[in-house]
């Protein structure tokens, strides 16, 4: 048992923090949020050069051969910088899906491109009316000779318009949940951007397309478990991002409490204000170690562990508390768009709504406790 980062992990974190503080700023977060692609392609290539985009891939594919835990540490730093990018859908979700399910050829085709930053991948999973990601796909693919006819609608697909590879979760008639690796070149997919508040571009996708059966990733009907794993990775990764983001919000909040005066003294000297900051500290610390523990479990192959679900069950409630406390300390200024707090608050809420509610994950914890 040792909750310290290893020297290598510390180095990774420090170099990531120093790199991001050089190249990124909250003004750039604002600007990129308003842009069509929602991320910075040039920076994406730099991230590839640093080895981030292949962080957990084998060297043979241009990867760095680290684990999911290291990916989590990077995400914490991206969160601190509030850097929007397709890192979660592409590096955390899609690449490992290709690695786990894809044929040798599919792996050779996509993984080196992803690691090099030359292909963006995403997952089209959610369908209209879903409350969370853990549903069986109802979009159907029908066999038509050697081809698969895919018809239906997906939504909340992140960075869809930028994606070179879209992994689409479908049910193949009579064969069960499967995933298809759909190339950007294939016609018959249409996109429309959704008006969401989370700072990440998300799309509706409409499919009416016949694709070769070779687009199948893995055996038909056997994708269910890997999709579940992918959702759990995305969940822990998003929480790690919010741990870093929240740490920065705590710094902003404490700084504000020290410098803002009311009734002739800094507001941080009022117990009600100081104790809100302490509650933030306490929640962020708890969430951080729950996230590390979850990431360590995933990295050790125990994706489905109680400890993984525990992180989101705590995280949803903690994020609410952390951001309500931050706003309460800041007063009216924190509600204005020109102040930076809202950039963080909107993302925190979006992470809460994605990857499973508190109730969903408590049910998972209960099942792992043997409560049947």
């Amino acid at each position, binding site marked *: 048992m040792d909750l310290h980062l290893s020297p290598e992990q510390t180095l990774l974190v420090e170099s990531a923090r120093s790199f991001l503080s050089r190249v990124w700023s909250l003004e750039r977060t604002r600007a990129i949020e308003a842009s069509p692609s929602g991320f910075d392609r040039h920076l994406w290539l730099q991230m590839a050069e640093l080895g981030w985009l292949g962080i957990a891939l084998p060297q043979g594919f241009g990867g760095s051969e680290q684990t999911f835990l290291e990916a989590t540490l990077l995400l914490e730093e991206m969160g601190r910088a509030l850097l929007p990018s397709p890192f979660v859908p592409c590096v955390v979700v899609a690449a490992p899906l290709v690695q786990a399910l894809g044929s040798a050829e599919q792996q050779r085709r996509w993984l080196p491109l992803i690691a090099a930053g030359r292909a963006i991948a995403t997952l089209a999973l959610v369908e209209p009316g879903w409350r969370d990601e853990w549903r069986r796909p109802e979009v159907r693919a029908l066999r038509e000779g050697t081809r698969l006819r895919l018809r239906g609608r997906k939504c909340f697909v992140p960075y869809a318009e930028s994606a070179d590879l879209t992994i689409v979760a479908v049910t193949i008639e009579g064969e069960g949940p499967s995933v298809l690796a759909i190339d950007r070149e294939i016609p018959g997919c249409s996109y429309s951007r959704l008006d969401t*508040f989370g700072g990440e571009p998300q799309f509706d996708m409409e499919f009416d397309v016949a694709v070769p059966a070779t687009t199948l990733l893995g055996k038909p009907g056997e994708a269910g478990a890997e999709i579940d794993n992918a959702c759990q990775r995305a969940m822990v990764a998003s929480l790690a991002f919010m741990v870093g983001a929240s740490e920065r919000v705590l710094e902003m909040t404490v700084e504000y409490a020290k410098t803002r005066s*009311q009734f002739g003294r800094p507001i941080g000297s009022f117990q009600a204000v100081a104790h809100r900051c302490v509650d933030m500290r306490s929640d962020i610390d708890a969430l951080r170690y729950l996230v590390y523990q979850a990431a360590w479990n995933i990295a050790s192959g125990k994706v489905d562990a109680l400890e993984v679900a525990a992180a989101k069950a705590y995280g949803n409630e903690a994020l609410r508390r952390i951001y309500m406390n931050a706003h309460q300390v800041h007063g009216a200024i924190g509600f204005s768009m020109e102040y930076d707090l809202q950039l963080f608050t909107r993302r925190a809420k*979006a992470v809460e709504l994605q990857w499973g509610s508190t109730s969903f994950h408590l049910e998972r914890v209960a099942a792992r406790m043997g409560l049947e």
Partner: protein
Amino acid sequence: MDFAFTPEEERFRQELKEFLRRELPEWWRGMFVHDDRVFPQTRRFCQELAERGWLTMAWPPEHGGQNASVWKQAILREEMWAHEEPRGPQYMNLNYIGPCIMRYGTEEQKRRFLPPMAKGTVIWTQGFSEPEAGSDLASVRTRAEEVADGFVVNGQKIWSSYADAPADWCFLLVRTDPSAPKHRGLSVLLVDMRTPGITVRPIDSMAGPHELNEIFFDDVKVPRNCLLGEKNRGWEIVTAGLAFERAGIARYARAGRVIELLTEYVQQTHCDGQPLAANLDVRRKLAELRVRYEAARLLNYRAISLQARGQVPVVEASIARLHNTQLEQLVGHVGMEILGLGGLLTHADPQAPLSGSVYRQWVRNIPTTIAAGTLEIQKNIIAAQGLGLPRQR
């Protein structure tokens, strides 16, 4: 003790509900959205209300009102607030600016300012907070120097609602005697917003436009007949104004409306082959909201019962406000949780569940525990005035 409205009051509520159903267009989402139709709509709506005598129902007959009972006023407030306050900026006039002018104004001021309010044609903003005086209103620095024919104002206000609507008038708190103790050197001026030297800077908020503004005053001349009440007695007016304002908002009613909308939603939405209303977690969460709504409503009714006896609820209003604001936030959070992924969509997306009402309930209420006296200040009031605890240090 009686926990029912009279049949006449119930009829009044039904009339209002039907009126609202008729008058509010489908696109109405309330204030603070990017939509040019909003202000004309509120103006039209207020004129309709005025025709029925409902706009200034609470005012005394001499100013065009009906001296409506506090319970009828409460019903009006509940229905207005439940429907996203279709009176728009006017509710401030009706709730506290008008009443302050009635109480502290000269006859000339009453004749000049009240009739346009009663017609629903004038927009007022307020100038209370300043960048260096958020919750600590008594420390405002905006100066009004007395000159021969009135005052010259210099300074800066912030968080002024509707100033960029644009507002016609400003209810302005200024310092007229810098040498007096903090609470003693303040006055209230009624300022024409078209006076030269006034600049408005809108500040977009998380919820949208028009709510937050800065107003800069640069040698702004205000005639003497625009001083409200006595010079250097402004603190009393603002305190009364804030008390009117706090009582004037049926915050629980909008929360209650969103609970109703969510209840319909979970009955109509199917998930895994059964209505969401059958999901035990959803049931418990909506029931909990409903229980807290009951608590908030009753504590507001307690305060109104005091008003009905001619008393001024201070501690009781603060306790009601604690429950209101915490309910509003909880409804936003729980509502979003019930929607799940659908909650990611804003009201601007045509696919947003319940037209984005839940999203707006969440985002609009982020600062509800801050506005009009923070949660902490409400608690300090209750501690000192309600419990007699020593002053917080």
